[in-house]
């Protein structure tokens, strides 16, 4: 239990750091970006929107930094992330539409990649020395390809040459989003290519990590014991795998951060209407409120996922529990 408390505290601190960095950056960067921004948009947005933006940065620049900081925090709690200057809507509204797509994409891809990767890795580790080992250099190569490059290649192959998969967007342009069957199917079909690119790029890491751990675990005595006990091979592999998978789960937290980064870019390539697309446009147009809002949401979501992964790990490894021997 203490461990969970420690993890929670860590994530709380991290969240606080992220929030504070989000606040500090525009205030500390050379060139006074906030002032410039407000000056730039004077004529383009309503005065209420300007005020909302100003508040989301911490209120007037004439006030002391600390006061601005608390104003900023207060605004956050009220859900005011500012107003996007390119889309003229509150940032929170925009995010509500995009975040689900990104979450779905990342969620499915991570789960698929993890499962397929660790299963393959376990088999590779167990049948070491067999012909399966030739998969390893291939997997290594795929791991080195930047996510978006693979996505680009797939876009090329399936977008301009073979027309097997739908390529741009998240669903068929003729449909309206809603909880209908046809929409769901369409959404799934449009998700295929993005998911496949992310999975292919990230699977090698899981595979290789699991393989190495499996080899180490198989050398332990308890695996020999289960063989000596006459257990069927399936049970022996499971016994070893249950132990070997633990470091992978511990690494899940780190991997989520990487998958998020990769997913953002894949969205770019496939015009998937998630957060990544949004971010790129925001960056190119210097839409700071939107950039900051996205950064916050991404970070907090990743932290939440990390916490979840940590809880799973604590559940799976009994050695982390602090009961002592009598």
């Amino acid at each position, binding site marked *: 239990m203490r461990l969970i408390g420690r993890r929670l505290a860590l994530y709380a601190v991290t969240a606080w750091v992220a929030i504070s960095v989000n606040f500090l950056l525009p205030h500390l960067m050379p060139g006074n970006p906030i002032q410039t921004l407000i000056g730039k948009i004077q004529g383009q947005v309503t005065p209420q929107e300007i005020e909302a933006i100003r508040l989301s940065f911490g209120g007037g620049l004439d006030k002391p930094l600390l006061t601005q900081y608390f104003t900023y925090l207060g605004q956050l709690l009220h859900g005011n992330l500012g107003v996007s200057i390119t889309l003229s809507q509150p940032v929170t509204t925009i995010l509500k539409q995009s975040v689900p797509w990104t979450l779905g994409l990342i969620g499915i891809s991570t789960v698929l990649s993890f499962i397929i990767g660790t299963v393959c890795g376990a088999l590779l580790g167990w049948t070491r*020395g067999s012909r399966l080992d030739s998969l390893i250099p291939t997997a290594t190569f795929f791991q080195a390809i930047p996510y978006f490059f693979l996505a680009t290649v797939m876009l090329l192959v399936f977008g301009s040459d073979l027309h097997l998969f739908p390529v741009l967007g998240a669903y068929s342009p003729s449909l309206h989003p809603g909880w209908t069957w046809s929409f769901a199917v369409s959404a799934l079909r449009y998700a295929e290519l993005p998911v496949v690119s992310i999975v292919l790029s990230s699977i090698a890491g899981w595979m290789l990590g699991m393989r190495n751990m499996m080899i180490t675990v198989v050398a332990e005595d308890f695996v020999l014991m289960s063989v000596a006990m006459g257990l069927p091979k399936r049970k022996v592999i499971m016994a070893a795998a249950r132990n070997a998978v633990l470091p992978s789960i511990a690494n899940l937290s780190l991997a989520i951060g990487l998958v998020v980064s990769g997913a*953002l870019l894949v969205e770019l*390539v496939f015009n998937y209407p998630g957060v990544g697309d949004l971010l790129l446009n925001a960056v190119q147009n210097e839409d700071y409120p939107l950039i900051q809002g996205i950064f916050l949401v991404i970070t907090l979501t990743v932290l939440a996922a990390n916490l979840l992964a940590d809880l799973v790990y604590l559940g799976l490894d009994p050695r982390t529990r602090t009961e002592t021997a009598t």
Partner: protein
Amino acid sequence: MKKSRFPRSPKVILGLCIVGFFLLLTIFGPLLAPFSPDNTSFAPLLTPSAHHWFGTTSLGQDIFSQTLVGARATIVVALVAGLVATMLSMVVGISAGYIGGYTDDGLSLMSNVFLAIPGLPLLIVIDSYLPVNSRSNTLVIGLIISLTGWAWGARVIRAQTMSLRNRDFVEASRIIGEKRHRVMFFEVAPNLLPILASSLLFTLLYSIGAYVTLAYIGLTSTSVWNWGTMLFWAQNNNAPLSGEWYWFVPPGVCIALVGTGLALLNFGIDEFINPRLRAAGLSSKQRRKLGLPRRQRLGLTPVLRTKVTTPAPLATTKPVTT
């Protein structure tokens, strides 16, 4: 110290060759390029030919030259970022692991925080606030990248340092009275070399990816040629959907190759650290020739009845029963 064994694994040798090749390219790339990468005087969107090995862009630039020249910035930034990040992680990791106590708590908290915040979004945010003129400064970009990439190495090094700290030779130098920083950097650090090397390789991998990604999004100055910028232009000119594969495949493949080379090297180091991972002797073809089963199977110790060439020193008792 252990005897150093030059690795004979084919994976490692291949890795060394690839990395070596690209290092040479970094140095000599711009010299070898047939044309200037900015030169727009050629016909646009030519497919690869003898004149233009990789074809031309929509502006009529030679892609082959761009690839060669682009190697330098890409790899240099990656190197800078990787080295700085590794040094940071080394200092933080060794200090945290060796000194322990509050120092450890503080440093660990810092690394965990940096680890938890997703790297790319943070990079994007920082970079977008940078004044435009510093974006062309590769050193600045390299530094920012290293800021987001040091945390993982620090954690790994800290763990290893903690396990080394309790070893006898460290204890011995402490008792003799060696100053703490001397013990840390002259006794402990040399034994961390394999982990440090592995950490450096990982960080290099990450840095290349980060730099190329930033360039792809357009957050670096387009005046400095690198592989990421090439991909940026390709994407912005709709190259994939138009079937102009020769525009973005060369830089992408180069990135992948460098990454693969680094990863293969990492394999070698992994096998060096963890002897269990080293190839267990013979290939399956060799085993079959010797009469052994194709691979090791747990719980089924192989039987290989060989001719005993020297007389067994201990014969069985009488009567002989086999």
